[in-house]
């Protein structure tokens, strides 16, 4: 097994634009808010050939940002992303076609004015993966592989249901013959019944094509279902990463524990009492993360040490990585 996709200490900041006027005002002594949003901080990870790495965490914790950096859409502020040893981007622009992305909202990720056949064929033609003449055949094949009638190629996105659109989006990504697929919450906007269809499709295709995947979701059960390994993010950092079965069965980090506890379970035996236990408090602002361990204000186990010192992500005996002083 070899790592096909690696991230080495990647960090991504979003800084507010500081204008000349702001600078002058700064010189004059006015306070200028130049705090940058630390969307992702010092993340290192490896995705092995053929495996699926799940990425979970609350909204705003930097999942998409990390995913976009790994997919080569967004350059990291620091650190490096490597796809089979090479950077997927040159400058600010993506160059590789070997990693493709499926986005969350299939309504938004398809251009409403372009027939879906053209949407699928556009990339391969542009990169010479298929000739213009062979494109229709390729489109037809991919449509049938994602479970759509090849005759739909001439339809527009609005003529499809949400689930069908997501199938088109998957076909578009796969038509580029990628080695790695980044799925950014591909089922978050779908109904459970449709979600099941898409997840099944995903599992099928992954197996058929031997794809390597990064699967982002905030839905813990979905991540559990598809991933070999999971990484849990909190406020821009990975706090726990390891084999899915182990992490779910025995979460080490208090945040992972809290997250798993706060999800309502399907109660088949009546609802005496609550099936879940909320984490107290709210997500701190990424503009001013708390010192020490970012989770300390919400953590039941927090001590003075946690408020002072940030725990490093260290490997435990079973191979799981955890960033906690007390785990």
């Amino acid at each position: 097994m070899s790592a096909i996709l690696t991230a080495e200490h990647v960090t991504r900041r979003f800084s507010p634009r500081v204008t000349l006027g702001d600078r002058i005002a700064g010189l004059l002594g006015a306070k200028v808010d130049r705090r940058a949003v630390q969307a992702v901080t010092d993340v290192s990870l490896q995705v092995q050939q053929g495996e699926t790495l799940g990425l979970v965490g609350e909204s705003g914790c930097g999942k998409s940002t990390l995913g976009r950096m790994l997919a080569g859409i967004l350059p990291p502020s620091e650190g490096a992303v490597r796809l089979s040893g090479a950077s997927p981007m040159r400058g600010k622009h993506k160059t590789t076609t070997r990693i493709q992305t499926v986005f969350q909202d299939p309504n938004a990720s398809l251009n409403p004015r372009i027939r879906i056949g053209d949407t699928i064929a556009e990339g391969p033609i542009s990169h010479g993966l298929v000739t213009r003449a062979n494109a229709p055949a390729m489109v037809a094949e991919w449509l049938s592989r994602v479970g759509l009638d090849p005759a739909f190629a001439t339809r527009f996105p609005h003529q499809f249901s949400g689930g069908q659109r997501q199938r088109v989006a998957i076909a578009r990504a796969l038509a580029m013959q990628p080695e790695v697929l980044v799925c950014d919450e591909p089922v978050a906007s779908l109904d459970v019944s449709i979600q099941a269809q898409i997840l099944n499709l995903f599992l099928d295709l992954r197996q058929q094509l031997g794809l390597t995947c990064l699967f982002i979701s905030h839905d813990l059960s979905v991540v559990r279902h598809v991933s070999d390994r999971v990484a849990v993010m909190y406020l821009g950092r990975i706090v726990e990463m390891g084999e899915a079965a182990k992490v779910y069965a025995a979460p080490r980090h208090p945040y992972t524990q809290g997250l798993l506890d706060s999800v309502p379970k399907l109660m088949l035996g009546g609802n005496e009492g609550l099936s879940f236990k909320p984490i107290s408090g709210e997500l701190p602002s990424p503009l001013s993360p708390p010192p020490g361990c970012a989770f300390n204000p919400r953590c039941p186990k927090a001590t003075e040490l946690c408020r002072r010192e940030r725990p490093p992500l260290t490997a435990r005996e079973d191979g799981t990585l955890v960033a906690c002083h007390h785990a």
Partner: protein
Amino acid sequence: MSPALSAFWQEYRENWIAVVALAVVAIIVAAALFAPWIAPQDPYDLANLELANARRPPGFVGSDGYVHWLGTDAQGRDLFSAILYGLRISLQMGIAAGAVALTIGTLLGVLAAHAGGKVEAGIMRLVDLQLSFPAILLALVLVAVLGQGRVPLIIALVTAQYAYFARTAYGAATAERQKDYVEAARATPLPGRRVVFRHILPNCLPPLIVVGTVQVANAIALEATLSFLGLGLPPTEPSLGMLIANGFQYMMSGRTWISVYPGIALIVLIVAINVVGDQLRDQFNPRLRR
């Protein structure tokens, strides 16, 4: 007609005022196109005009035998013919200026939205400046500098208007730019040019079309105002605005027809275009759809 278009027309048809307006625009455009065949007189053939027939009231029978149903103007032109030809010029100017402004403005706006950073800031500051700066003053200076004629006038109108398109296009393009399908195109990756022209641009068109109709009407009105201020087209090829402006001096003396009939024609045209534009705006607004 494609089903989408026919559905669009079904919806359009529900507003009878808009239908009437569309018919009016169509009739006016047709009348302007076929002016040489409809008009009893060729008002541009100067040799044909008789100064002795100048400023005659409606119904006057000219020395050459035809009845001037709308009277004649200060050059002895048959007003009905002059209005038809004037519509032609006004429409020409309006559409030409509107089209050029649309092209330039759209390109600038989309470019700004796409490029971001300094280019974006530069273009949008220019546009803001232009928007806040009175169009008419700008046109005034430009016409004075460039001299008289269609091309300078179109340049002036375009300068006065492109900013509206740029702003609209920019707004639409920044909205589109954030949509996932643009990111998807970038993530494929498709070349930047293709992203702009195939993906972003077509999706910015509906609001631009609406702004376009209104701006054509505006260009016509602005041209009229410039004519009024003495900076319009040559007087021998009068636009509607020029006819109005020329007749303006006779308003006080009761020879109102010289200015009023072209005025009515102008107002009907602009109102009709605006009503059509309004309806399109409503129909393009997804929040008001049902």
